[in-house]
């Protein structure tokens, strides 16, 4: 019966869909959320548009949005590969296995997996040093908190997120040794309802600053409503919470995307790992809110940005101890990229355990 069905349906195959022009390179994106999330996916979409503007007629772009991180992702990625896309960006960590699976089947198609760590001949990885921005907002939070309690909403206990918490805490406790952070694990990147609930819980527990490592603007809106301060994530979220938004850590993907697409157009693309921060412009701070922050504080924040950019400051400067009190980065040294990439421990001073 099933074979019969297949035969019947295969008659439809006469309506084939290929109408590709050979000259322009096709570039596809897989998005975890909608471009309208005004956070993570929004910024990838901005990057896509930047790339289109930069490369003009030599490329065309498409995207598939709201792709769940399950078996559906394989089909979505494969669909891009099969429909003649030359370069495919999969823009969430959890697409890793699916990206590798499809990449194996399409050796001539180039893949770029955001925030991943597994590479092959046709799979590159790229990420931004978001933690550099965390150093800036940690400094501001340490200075601005009155209750010495910071609420921190996070997604998954993976190195990227833990690195952010540590960078934030190191900077905050440097200027305010009494500062405490309360952490809520949401186990999702984009769930505005849950993120708002988490923010309200933290505010009820005395947090007067809300920090997030999730994708929606709900936490910042909740902070605005409760009259406490907040930092935005991924894009400039000031519009959603003008009276509580101090700054946002922005992800700037456009120049990287344009460069990688150009490499495909020129035929020079090779598999590589990219990890860029303030210096290269992949991470930027949104304009500091002058209504909330004093000129001095804004000057300090700018100085931190500058020092990280020119290498005189590092987010992880020794001595750094872990929660057990063991020295992990010696005095005068900085954490190397290997340690940062696999960071699965809290630094001394952070309460609680990483969920195991």
């Amino acid at each position, binding site marked *: 019966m099933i074979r019969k069905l297949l035969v019947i349906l295969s008659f439809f195959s006469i309506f084939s869909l290929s109408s590709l022009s050979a000259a322009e390179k096709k570039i596809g994106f897989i998005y975890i959320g909608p471009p309208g999330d005004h956070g993570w996916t929004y910024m990838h979409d901005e990057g896509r548009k930047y790339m289109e503007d930069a490369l003009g007629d030599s490329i065309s772009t498409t995207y598939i949005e709201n792709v769940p991180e399950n078996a559906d992702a394989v089909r979505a990625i494969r669909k891009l590969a099969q*429909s003649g896309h030359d370069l495919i960006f999969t823009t969430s960590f959890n697409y890793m296995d699916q990206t590798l699976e499809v990449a194996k089947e399409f050796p001539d198609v180039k893949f770029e997996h955001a925030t991943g760590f597994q590479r092959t001949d046709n799979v590159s990885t790229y990420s931004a040093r978001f933690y550099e921005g965390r150093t800036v907002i940690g400094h501001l939070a340490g200075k601005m908190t009155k209750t010495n309690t910071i609420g921190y909403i996070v997604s998954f206990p993976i190195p990227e997120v833990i690195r952010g918490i540590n960078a934030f805490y190191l900077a905050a406790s440097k200027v305010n040794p009494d500062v405490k952070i309360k952490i809520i694990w949401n186990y999702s990147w984009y769930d505005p309802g849950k993120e708002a609930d988490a923010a309200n819980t933290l505010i009820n527990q005395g947090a007067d600053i809300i920090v997030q490592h999730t994708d929606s603007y709900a936490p910042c809106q909740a902070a605005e409503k409760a009259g406490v301060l907040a930092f935005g994530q991924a894009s400039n979220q000031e519009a959603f919470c003008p009276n509580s938004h101090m700054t946002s850590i922005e992800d700037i993907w456009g120049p990287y995307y344009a460069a990688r697409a150009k490499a495909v157009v020129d035929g020079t693309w090779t598999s590589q790992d990219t990890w860029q921060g303030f210096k290269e412009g992949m991470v930027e701070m949104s304009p500091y809110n002058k209504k909330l922050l004093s000129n001095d504080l804004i000057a300090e924040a700018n100085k931190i940005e500058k020092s990280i950019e020119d290498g005189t400051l590092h987010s992880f400067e020794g001595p750094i101890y872990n929660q057990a009190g063991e020295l992990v980065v010696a005095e005068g040294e900085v954490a190397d990229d290997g340690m940062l990439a696999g960071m699965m421990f809290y630094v001394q001073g952070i309460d609680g355990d990483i969920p195991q």
Partner: protein
Amino acid sequence: MIKIQKRNSSSSLIFYLSPIVAIFLTLFFGSLIFLFLDLSPIESFKIFFIGPISNWYGLSELLVKASPLALIALGLSYCFKNNIYNIGAEGQLTIGALFGGGVGLFFYDSNSIFLLPTMILFGSIGGAFWASIPAILKTKFNTNEILSSLMLTYIALLILDYFVVGPWKDPTGYGLPKSRPFSDAGRLPVLVDGFRAHIGVYFTIIIAALSYFIFNKTLFGFKLRVTGFSSKASKYAGFKNDNLIIYTFLISGACAGLAGIFEVSGPIGQLYRDISPNYGFTAIIVAFLGRLNPIGIIFSSLLIALTYLGAEDAQLFLKIPSAVGFVFQGLVLFFLLGADFLNKYRVLLR
């Protein structure tokens, strides 16, 4: 004034024709939507409904998507025929995946040929177990099964969360909430190498055939129909309604559990949090669109699966948002319910 009046008799011909009517109305209003978006309706429909299955891979993907939908909907049809509204198939699927997947993880280095059958067995037991809770609550305490089965879905998802975040997390997974992969012996064989359609499709077809036989040729099927038509009548006939409720829930849960273990041992290969794109809920539409008839359900599952695939192609080739797939699902259901309503009632204007 509009007045609604019950018809003396409703036509069974129209009952079976209404899905076709609903599909045509959906196509008509879908065309208007495409026109409104400045797209050619014919081109758009070609991309939406024919493009995704215009090659072997697409057909295989259609089966990957339709098979769990049909399997769950077949199970649900037992409940729905009995006028028992099991809305919690998503939870039963989740617990099925958890039970079966748990076996797979416990024997993660096994290459025994018995591993997969055991996983499948535990998958269906898990689903049936989860379905037994609303069934018992219903029969013992007369609890509304719509609420209890629905709420148990969220509990099931949290239990799965607990396991993949905690004890079953892959020790080499960098803290991500995913289990380790099942061994090759714990993976569902595919129908054809290089395609993802798996032997779950055979199970679905067998269960559909079996259900057709049960509904039409057995006393159990007759009891279901009588009870569904009037529970009082069935009591007069001496049928034990409580037993029927429990059996239908168990069957329905076992089917959802099977769909769950097929999904994780098939295309996914491990446990993680988002194993199902709401198959358990979408299957409700599939069951009703298929008129609770096993053959109808096979066709409706293919159609609904196609709306998912079409929505992906529509994004790629028409540059319209993914929500358009849900719009089509919603339109079909809306017109179907409308046709059913008008079949039972007449609307008088005066």
